[in-house]
């Protein structure tokens, strides 16, 4: 992350308010941040702290109520459908529930073919496309020939997660946003998926944003960690600073609540 870090995604005063009057909720409250190219960032916070709302704004799925988002240092403008499509070539997401991200009427081959098309490879010869899909599948330990003609829901949760990574492999976005990508899977498959993501990140130099409850994961993978409480970033820094030496009471409490195996886990603090 040496000398000249290039800004990838940043924001000023970013705010999202849902509802009004009695039901008014400030889900994201005036946050500023700078994410740099090639960095791995984790955003950690309790349920309802606003993580998903923030990620939806970053993805351009919902509009910000106030504030600005900058992409590669430029103010992001995705008001036109064309600009939005262009933006989505650069930012892709993996969601908690892999099943929710596929069109159930689309077979797996077409899921992957769409990725090739999105990258402008629609006119490539068929053999070339198949070769690319095969390569993407083998990157995530799936056998392309066993997947063709199947529908996504015929896969297990783990295979589905890996198919999502195969998509990312083909799309090669600048930014990958992963909202709780591993919460549904066991530790062992989690390690496999993290390995794949980190490998992919090295290969295509992506910026990766993890949104997670999993403080162990945040500690393990990130270059910087942001702690979110009630829509605000209350603390940020390197994993060593934030997770091993937290300053804010909120961060301290979160860290304290993670089950430990090398240290004593204090259950008496439960309110």
């Amino acid at each position, binding site marked *: 992350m040496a000398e000249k870090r290039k800004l990838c995604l940043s924001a000023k005063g970013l705010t999202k308010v849902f509802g009004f009057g009695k039901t008014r909720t400030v889900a994201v409250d005036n946050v500023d941040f700078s994410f740099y190219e090639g960095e791995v960032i984790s955003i950690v916070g309790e349920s309802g702290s606003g993580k998903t709302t923030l990620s939806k704004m970053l993805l351009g799925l919902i509009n910000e109520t106030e504030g600005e988002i900058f992409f590669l240092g430029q103010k992001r403008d995705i008001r036109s459908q064309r600009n939005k499509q262009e933006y989505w070539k650069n930012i892709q997401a993996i969601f908690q529930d892999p099943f929710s991200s596929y069109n159930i009427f689309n077979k797996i081959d077409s899921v992957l073919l769409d990725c090739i098309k999105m990258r402008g490879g629609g006119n490539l010869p068929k053999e070339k496309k198949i070769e690319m899909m095969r390569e993407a599948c083998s990157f995530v330990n799936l056998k392309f020939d066993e997947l063709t003609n199947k529908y996504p829901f015929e896969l297990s949760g783990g295979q589905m997660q890996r198919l999502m990574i195969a998509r990312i492999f083909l799309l090669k976005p600048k930014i990958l946003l992963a909202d709780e990508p591993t919460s549904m899977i*066991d530790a062992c498959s989690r390690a496999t998926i993290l390995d794949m993501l980190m490998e992919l990140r090295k290969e295509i130099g992506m910026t990766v944003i993890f949104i997670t409850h999993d403080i162990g*994961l945040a500690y393990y993978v990130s270059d910087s960690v942001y702690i979110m409480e009630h829509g605000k970033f209350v603390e940020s820094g390197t994993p060593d600073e934030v997770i091993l030496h937290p300053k804010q009471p909120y961060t301290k409490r979160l860290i304290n609540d993670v089950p430990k195996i090398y240290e004593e886990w204090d259950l008496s603090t439960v309110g």
Partner: protein
Amino acid sequence: MGKVILEVKDLTTKYITRFKEDVYAVDHVSLKVEEGKSLGIAGESGCGKSTLALSLMGYYFPPLYYTSGDIIIDGKHISGMDPDEVRKTILGKEIAYIPQAAMNALNPTQKIINFVEDVVRAHNPSATKKDIYDMARQRFEFLGLPANVLDKYAVELSGGMKQRTVIAISVILGPKVLIADEPSSALDVTSQKMVIKMLRDLMDKGIIKAMIFITHELPLLYNVTNDIMVMYAGQIVERGSAKEAVFDPLHPYAKGLMGSIIVPEEGLRNVKLTAIPGVPPNLKHPPAGCRFAERCKFAKPECRVISVQIKEAGPGRTYRCIFSESELREAYKNG
């Protein structure tokens, strides 16, 4: 040795699919849980943890079928019992089960007290509304839950509160054994800790006598249960104290699993995770020899043919591998 509350001997159960294929999801499983003890079950998705839970309660409804083996709860044999009878007399009273994702399955149009009434009336149809309410209030307060939760709808509760409510309802009849299937995986760390504290309280306060806790989160099991059992492809591959299973696993799969733990503790940022390559075998056609052989970096040719039996390695400690303890330790030392 304490009194055995739950004993399972050589239990085998299967699913029969729509295409009439057998899926052996629980294959010759034996286990014992003593009074005052808890057992954790860990293992990859699809290895049969939830199926084992249903099977050891005698809860056999298609497509799940009992094949062979014994289940004994506090001296009472329940294997071979009619599943409808099990539902009436065993469930909730002898064994309570909190299914995976139960908290999201609560009917949104009912108040919490209505669920309590359903559970109590299933066993005691003549219980009055007032008696049930009083009992529930007492029990909720005893477990540190505000009594006003009883008058709320599930949607009004936070995830953590909902899950603790589900647990409190599950144990309302004072079952001997509680089986909790992934009760905290969907929660944030703070709510998760509250759930864990509550489960431990249930044991400490004597509301339940034994507990089985299913989760893929090993650091959690380590902090909650006395013993840990690791399953792989329908079989038990390792069982030991929580400490042994986490810090000194014998079976290569258990070893791999422990190597994939990430905890935010000093110095653990740079450890290499041991992701296990490959995928588990298809349970419709499990391999003849060791089920893990195909993914095991220590496997010898005979591993794929010899079907391995469970071996003893000290009191309460077992594993399933053709290698001896010392051979395994040697292999791990050399990486």
